[in-house]
C-alpha cells in the first residue's frame, strides 16, 4: 500500500530530474511538465479522500496521516484543494512556457518548488512548513533568471524579503507554546502577534514591503514571475491561514480583520496608482499582482466566512489574469532585444504578435476585475458583500481597477501602433504559430468561461472557507 500524498512530494522531484535531463529538447520537456502537473492536479481532485485505489497493481490511499522522516504529514480536504490549485496553476504556466520559453529553467525548478510547497501544506508542526516554503522561495531565483540576461535583482529582493519574514514565523510556535503554559504572560502573545503581522506583511508584499513585486516582474522571466505570483503566493496564503487556524488565541487578539483591511487598502491604492503610471509593461504585471493581493486581504478583512470565501475566490481566479498577462509580455518581448523594455521600445510589436497582445489585454482585464473575465467573478461579489459596510475599500478597489486598465491601455496603444520602434527592424519578423494561438485561445477562453459562469469555481471557494474554524465565534 502506498500513501498517495507521497506521490505529490516524490513524483515532482523525479520529474524535475527527467525534465532537466531533457532540456535540450525544450518543447518535449515543456510538454511533459504540462501533462504531469495537469495529471497530478486533476488526480488529487478526482481521487476520493480516505479510499484506496488500484493503480498498476498497487494500492494507493489518499488522505490520513503518514510519518515521513519522523514528521507527520496530514492530508485533509483543505490541503487537497490547495495542492490541486498549485499543480493546476503550474500546469497553466507550463502550457504557456511550452510555447514561449521552452528552454527555461522554470520546468525543473518549478517541479522542485511544487514538491516543497506541497510538503509545506502537509507537514506538521508549522515550523517545518515555514522552512520548506523558504527553500522553495530561494529556489525561485533559478527560475526567475532570464537566459542570457543580467542577474535578476528582483529575485534577490524577493528572497531577501522572505528571508526576513522567516525568523518571526519560526519563533511564533515557541512563543505560543510558552504562552499556553503561562497564560498570564501576555507579552509572549503580544510578541507573537507582532511577529505574525510583520512576517506575513513581508511575504505578501504589503505596503511598504511591496517593492519586490514590481522588481520581480520587471527584470525576470515573465512566466516565472507569474509562477511566483500565483503558485508561491497561493502557498503563502494557505500558510497564513494555517497559522490563524492553529493559534486561535492569536487570531482573536490580533484583530487581524482590521489589520488585513488596512493592509489590503494600502496595496490596492499603491498598486492602482503606480500601475497606471508604469512605462514598462512587465512591471505592470507586478503592480497588478499587488492590487490582486490587496483585494484578497480586504475580503479576508471582513472577518466572516463569506469574506474568507471571497478571498479564496480571488485566489482561485488570480492565475487567469496574471498568467495571461505574463504570457502576453513574454510573447511581445520575444520579438525584440531589450530584456525589460519600455513601452516606446515595444512600439508596433503587437501587430506582429496579435495573440500575445490579446493575452495581455484579457489578462489585464481579469487582473483589473472587469466584466467578462475570471477576475470579475470575485471582484463583483466582494463589492456587493462589503459595499454597505466599507464603501471606502470598494471605491479604492474600483479606482485600482481603473489604474491597472490605464496601464494596460497605454501599453496596447503603443504595441498596436502602426509605427515600429527602431529596435524592431529585422529583429523578429516571424509571426506567431498556430500552437501559440491555440494556447492563448485556451487561456482567454478559460478566463471568459469562468467570468460568465463563476459557479464553476465559487462553490469550491465557499467549501474551502467552511473548512476553517478560526472565524467561528
Amino acid at each position, binding site marked *: 500500500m502506498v500513501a498517495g500524498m507521497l506521490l505529490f512530494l516524490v513524483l515532482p522531484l523525479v520529474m524535475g530530474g527527467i525534465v532537466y535531463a531533457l532540456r535540450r529538447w525544450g518543447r518535449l520537456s515543456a510538454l511533459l511538465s504540462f501533462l504531469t502537473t495537469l495529471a497530478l492536479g486533476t488526480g488529487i481532485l478526482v481521487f476520493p479522500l480516505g479510499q484506496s485505489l488500484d493503480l498498476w497493481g498497487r494500492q494507493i490511499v489518499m488522505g490520513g496521516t503518514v510519518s515521513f*522522516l*519522523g*514528521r507527520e504529514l496530514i492530508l485533509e480536504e483543505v490541503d487537497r484543494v490547495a495542492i490541486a490549485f498549485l499543480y493546476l496553476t503550474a500546469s497553466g504556466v507550463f502550457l504557456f512556457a511550452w510555447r514561449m520559453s521552452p528552454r527555461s529553467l522554470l520546468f525543473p525548478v518549478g517541479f522542485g518548488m511544487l514538491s516543497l510547497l506541497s510538503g509545506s501544506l502537509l507537514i506538521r508542526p508549522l*515550523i*517545518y512548513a515555514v*522552512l*520548506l516554503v*523558504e*527553500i522553495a522561495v*530561494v*529556489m525561485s*531565483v*533559478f527560475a526567475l*533568471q532570464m537566459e*542570457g*540576461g*543580467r*542577474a*535578476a*535583482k528582483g*529575485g*534577490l529582493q524577493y*528572497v*531577501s524579503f522572505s*528571508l*526576513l519574514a*522567516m*525568523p518571526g514565523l*519560526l*519563533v511564533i510556535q*515557541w512563543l505560543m507554546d510558552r504562552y499556553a503554559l503561562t497564560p498570564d504572560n501576555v507579552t509572549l502573545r503580544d510578541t507573537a502577534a507582532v511577529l505574525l503581522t510583520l512576517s506575513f506583511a513581508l511575504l505578501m508584499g504589503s505596503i511598504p514591503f511591496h517593492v519586490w513585486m514590481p522588481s520581480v516582474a520587471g527584470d525576470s522571466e515573465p512566466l516565472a514571475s507569474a509562477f511566483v505570483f500565483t503558485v508561491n503566493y497561493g502557498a503563502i496564503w494557505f500558510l497564513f491561514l494555517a497559522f490563524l487556524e492553529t493559534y486561535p488565541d492569536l487570531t482573536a487578539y490580533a484583530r487581524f480583520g482590521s489589520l488585513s483591511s488596512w493592509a489590503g487598502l494600502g496595496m490596492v491604492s499603491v498598486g492602482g496608482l503606480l500601475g497606471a503610471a508604469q512605462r514598462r509593461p512587465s512591471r505592470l504585471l507586478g503592480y497588478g499582482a499587488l492590487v490582486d493581493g490587496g483585494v484578497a486581504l480586504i475580503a479576508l478583512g471582513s472577518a466572516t466566512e463569506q469574506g474568507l470565501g471571497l478571498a479564496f475566490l480571488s485566489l482561485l481566479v488570480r492565475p487567469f489574469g496574471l498568467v495571461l498577462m505574463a504570457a502576453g509580455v513574454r510573447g511581445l518581448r520575444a520579438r525584440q532585444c531589450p530584456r525589460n523594455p519600455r513601452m516606446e521600445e515595444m512600439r508596433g510589436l503587437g501587430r506582429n504578435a496579435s495573440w500575445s497582445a490579446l493575452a495581455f489585454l484579457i489578462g489585464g482585464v481579469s487582473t483589473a476585475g472587469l466584466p467578462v473575465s475570471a477576475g470579475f467573478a470575485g471582484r463583483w461579489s466582494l463589492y456587493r458583500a462589503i459595499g454597505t459596510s466599507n464603501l471606502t475599500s470598494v471605491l479604492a478597489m474600483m479606482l485600482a481597477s481603473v489604474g491597472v486598465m490605464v496601464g494596460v491601455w497605454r501599453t496596447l496603444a503603443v504595441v498596436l501602433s502602426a509605427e515600429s520602434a527602431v529596435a524592431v527592424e529585422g529583429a523578429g519578423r516571424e509571426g506567431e504559430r498556430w500552437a501559440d494561438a491555440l494556447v492563448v485561445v485556451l487561456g482567454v477562453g478559460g478566463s471568459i468561461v469562468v467570468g460568465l459562469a463563476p459557479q464553476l469555481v465559487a462553490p469550491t471557494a465557499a467549501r474551502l472557507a467552511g473548512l476553517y474554524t478560526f472565524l467561528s465565534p
Partner: protein
Amino acid sequence: MPILGDLLSRAMFLAAMPAGVGALVTAVLLVVSQDWRLNVLALAAQYFFMTLLMTQVVRVELAAVKGLIGWVICVVFYLTEQQAQSMASTTGSGEPMTVREWFTARVEAWRQTGISAQAAFSLMAAVVVGVTVYVALPSVPLPEVSTSVALVCYFLVGMGILLLGLSRDPLRAGIGMLMILSGFDLFYVALEPSLVVTGLLGSINFVIALGAAFLKAGEAVTADQEVVE
C-alpha cells in the same frame, strides 16, 4: 565527525569573548571590504567563530555540522568569483593575479590612497548599526541565550540587512543573506536544537549560496558577451 569535533574541542578556550569579537569584526569586514578574496576569507573565519559560539548553546557535533556547511559555501563562493575573474581577464576587463601579487597590490593601494569613500561610508553605517544594536539590546532581550550571544545575533542580522542594502553584486547580497541566517541560527538553535531543523536551515543556506553563485555566473557570462559584441 571525530576529527572536526576534536579540533573544535581544542579551540573551546576561544568560545566566549574572543569568538564573539571575531564574529563582529568579520561582519564589519564583510560590509566594508569590496575585495572578494578578503570577503571569502572573512566569511570562512566568521563561520569558524559562529561554530565556536554555537558550542555554548548546543552539542559540539551539531555546531560542527553548521560550520561545515558554512565552509562548503565559502568554497562555492571562492570558485564562482575565481571563474568570474578569469572570464573578465580573458576579455581584457580584469587581470588574474597570484595571492602574493594581490596582497602586495592591496597594501600598496592602502598606503597610497587610504580608505575609499565607499568603504568609509560602509564603515560609518556599520558603526551606526552596531551602536543601535548595543543600545536596543536591553529592551529586546532574546530568550534562552546569554546577553553576549544575543548581541552577536542582533549585530549579524543588522550587518546582513546593511550589506543587502549596500550591495548590487549578487555574491555580496548572498553574503548579506547568509549573515542574517547565521545571526538567527545562533539564537534559534537554542530554542529548537533538532537535527531536522538544522538540516533544513542548512539547506536554505546552501540554496542561497548556489542561487547567488548562479546569478554571479550569469552576470559574468553576460558581461563577457557584451565585451565580445
